[in-house]
């Protein structure tokens, strides 16, 4: 299944007219009304609406069609947002950002998910051939404000959060203040930042990052090759390889945690064994290496002819690469690839990595004994199926 994470509300009334957008948190009726000004009671039926009113709620988030008649009861001081039943998955503790005028909204945080990520900006100094989130050169600094408003609403028992982009370090001074707020407001929450790492080649930036002194922070940085021009071609930026590698060295030199990510496609997968050996030899001190199946979405669809390779065609090289990293004591995982296309030797490293809202299986998977442990497949974009997808028999 694929969850719809954004849409247009059918109603949006009573919200602060002095601002053009709000960040709100959904609460069930069991909670006290209006713990914070951002809390809205989730209401799915007229009965629930009555209960909410009698519990003195003033802010309501209607989900589905059954509540249509309730909207006919306007009242001063009452705030109402109404969305279609497509968003029935929204639940207690979830956070939504909404534009008052256009009524467009986006699910920013789902308390029950292990895969919460905040998009920091759509701007990026790379332009990767397979980018799943094609960059836009626009002024979107408001997103950082939205994140700052969201953080106090995030359940403090949340285990992990991801910041992604674009390049999250584009406005690095602002972003570092967001990390500092994570440290103060969510001290139990691990933070992962998906960055191309180029900014860390600047000592001022890497020192600011270290200066946050976050207790559980990791920078996840893509490296696509051991050779400069191949990496630069993949990320469409000359000089990127040098800055990225330098960035990783500077992070580690300052005792910061860093993960290397290699997305596997036709430009990177045929040499994955060599790339892994190179990482094992030159950067064995990184904290984690993730070898990742390609999500066929965004630019990857446009560049399909250049990028598509059946995972069966790099199966052996991947197994060799994983083996080499393990032998060098490097912590390695394989993401986004179903077990049937992987050598069994790799299975202990294969992770159920695909975010729940875009994760699925095909009919064949129903007969597979490994299904419960398998990553499954992407449902997003234009999924391509490997010829190797086959139920694993007992």
């Amino acid at each position: 299944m694929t969850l719809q994470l954004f849409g247009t509300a059918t109603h949006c009334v009573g919200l602060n007219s002095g601002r053009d957008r709000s960040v709100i948190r959904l609460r069930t009726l069991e909670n006290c009304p209006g713990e914070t000004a951002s809390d809205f009671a989730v209401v799915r039926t007229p009965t629930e609406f009555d209960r909410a009113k009698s519990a003195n709620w003033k802010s309501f988030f209607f989900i589905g069609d059954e509540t249509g008649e309730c909207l006919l009861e306007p009242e001063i001081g009452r705030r109402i947002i109404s969305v279609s039943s497509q968003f029935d998955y929204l639940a207690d503790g979830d956070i939504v950002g909404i534009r008052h005028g256009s009524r467009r909204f986006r699910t920013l945080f789902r308390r029950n998910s292990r895969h919460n990520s905040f998009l920091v900006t759509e701007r990026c100094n790379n332009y990767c051939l397979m980018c799943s989130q094609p960059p836009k050169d626009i002024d979107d600094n408001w997103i950082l404000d939205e994140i700052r408003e969201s953080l106090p609403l995030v359940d403090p028992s949340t285990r992990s959060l991801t910041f992604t982009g674009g390049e999250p370090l584009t406005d690095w001074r602002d972003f570092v203040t967001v990390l500092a707020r994570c440290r103060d407001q969510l001290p139990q929450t691990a933070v992962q930042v998906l960055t191309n790492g180029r900014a860390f080649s600047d000592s001022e930036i890497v020192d600011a990052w270290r200066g946050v002194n976050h207790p559980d922070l990791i920078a996840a940085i893509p490296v696509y090759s051991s050779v400069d021009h191949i990496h630069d071609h993949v990320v469409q930026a000359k000089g990127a390889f040098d800055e990225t590698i330098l960035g990783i060295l500077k992070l580690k030199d300052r005792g910061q945690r860093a993960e290397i990510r290699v997305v596997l496609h036709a430009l990177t997968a045929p040499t994955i064994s060599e790339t892994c050996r190179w990482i094992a030899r030159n950067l064995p001190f990184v904290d984690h290496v993730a070898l990742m199946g390609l999500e066929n979405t965004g630019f990857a669809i446009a560049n399909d002819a250049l990028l598509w390779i059946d995972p069966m065609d790099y199966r052996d090289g991947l197994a060799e690469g994983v083996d080499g990293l393990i032998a060098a004591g490097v912590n390695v995982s394989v993401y986004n690839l179903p077990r049937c296309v992987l050598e069994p030797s790799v299975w202990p490293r294969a992770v159920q990595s695909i975010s729940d809202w875009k994760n699925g299986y095909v009919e064949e998977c129903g007969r597979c004994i490994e299904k419960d442990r398998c990553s499954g497949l992407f449902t997003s974009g234009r999924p391509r199926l490997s010829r190797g997808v086959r139920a694993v028999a007992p």
Partner: protein
Amino acid sequence: MARFLSPEAFGASSEAMSLLPLNLERIGTNEYLVSNMVGDFIRLTGDEINKLVDLRMIPGDGLYEKAYAAHLITGVNQKAQRQVLAARLRSRMSFLGQVTPLHIFVVTLRCEHSCPYCQVSRQSTDRSRFDMSEETAHRALDIAFESHASRIKIEFQGGEPLLNFGLIKTIVSAARRRSEIVGKGVDFVIASNLALLDDAVLEFCKSNEILLSTSLDGPAELHNKNRPRPGGNSYELAVAGIRRAKEVLGPDRVGALMTTTEASLDRVDDIIEEYLNLGLDGIFLRPLSPFGFAIKTKQYQRYDAGNWLRFYEKGLRRVLEINRKGTPFREFYASLILTRMLTDKPIGYVDLRSPAGIGIGALVYNYDGSVFASDEGRMLAETGDNSFRLGHVTDDNYKSLVLSDKLVEAISSSLTQCAPECSTCVFESHCGADPVYHHATQGDALGIKPLSAFCSRQKRIMRLLLDILDNSPADAAILRRWAGS
């Protein structure tokens, strides 16, 4: 939709490329072994070497990619290639940060064995003359605890150190007291033939977490021939000692070393079998060193580097076969070299480092209070050569010993990084200086390397290991597991 650039847009012209330091050696009619600054190897043809050196490469031609990934070239404006090399070199050399971690106490020169190959020239009589005094031991401890390493190892040597067990006990308890006071960790090893091992010794080792290191040359008749003692039962006592020590101290608290004599040369399989049967996790195939009785009794001259290498290669291949059949078992010298070749872990092993480990890796306190730069250095002194005698415990302190002109001269004159033959050697990153050996064999700490059996042994072993790594996948997988752990 955005426009994407083709691969060519990201290439570099040869003006924008720069060569990084490399060494090379011709290993076939048209094959060269090439190593980068930290000793990663690739193989290139003569034509490729010429193109590389002239920077006649273009991205996409295969050679560029090979050379770039191996850190043989960089873009002139790039920094990462050089910084990666710098970081790795720093890691490889970081053993230098732990100055003098090893302190060897020769608590007695007496021994009840009379091995003709004895490299330390043991004595059989006269307790008063050849035992270390308590006063000397305490002065030696003063010096050991002055050294800058955060953790030190005290190794008891002889002779047979258990002949002076009382002094060992005194030193261990004094060292533990000092360790607690100054916060410097201390480990202990007793190098013993185990003939005198009894329950009291074992109990003491257990309560003080002392490792035992012993000698085992192979099957009974070979071992007993190499290592005579009254009763002719050296083998029986060593084996019983190893078994007993494993039982009482734990399987990994006793190690054995073998020495290769002429009689060992065609028996490597039997020797390995002996180690396997005892449940030991590996073997260290060691040649004789040119010191002490080994020279006097002409043991050392009985085989040359070629004989020994044939013995070594046969042994290594046998060990690999044992692993292929499912029993994990190592050859420890190969493990050391592989750790240097396949990782950047700092290996301070005395023979495999430059700057050499004499003095700054280890100090030896002889029974009579003289202090030597290495165990081999005191072996030389027993035959009249005091070149590596740095001083005496009563006259010197740690500083005066390690900053002595004698030591500084021997270390600085033997650096492989700038020595003729070594500085351009394709194996330099993984080798060592070994000035005592070269002094003993050539009368010069640096030595003429083409005449050095140490050099030819090192080169041949590394070539052998590289050949297996590149050409025998099953054995290569085994060797990789030995590296770094």
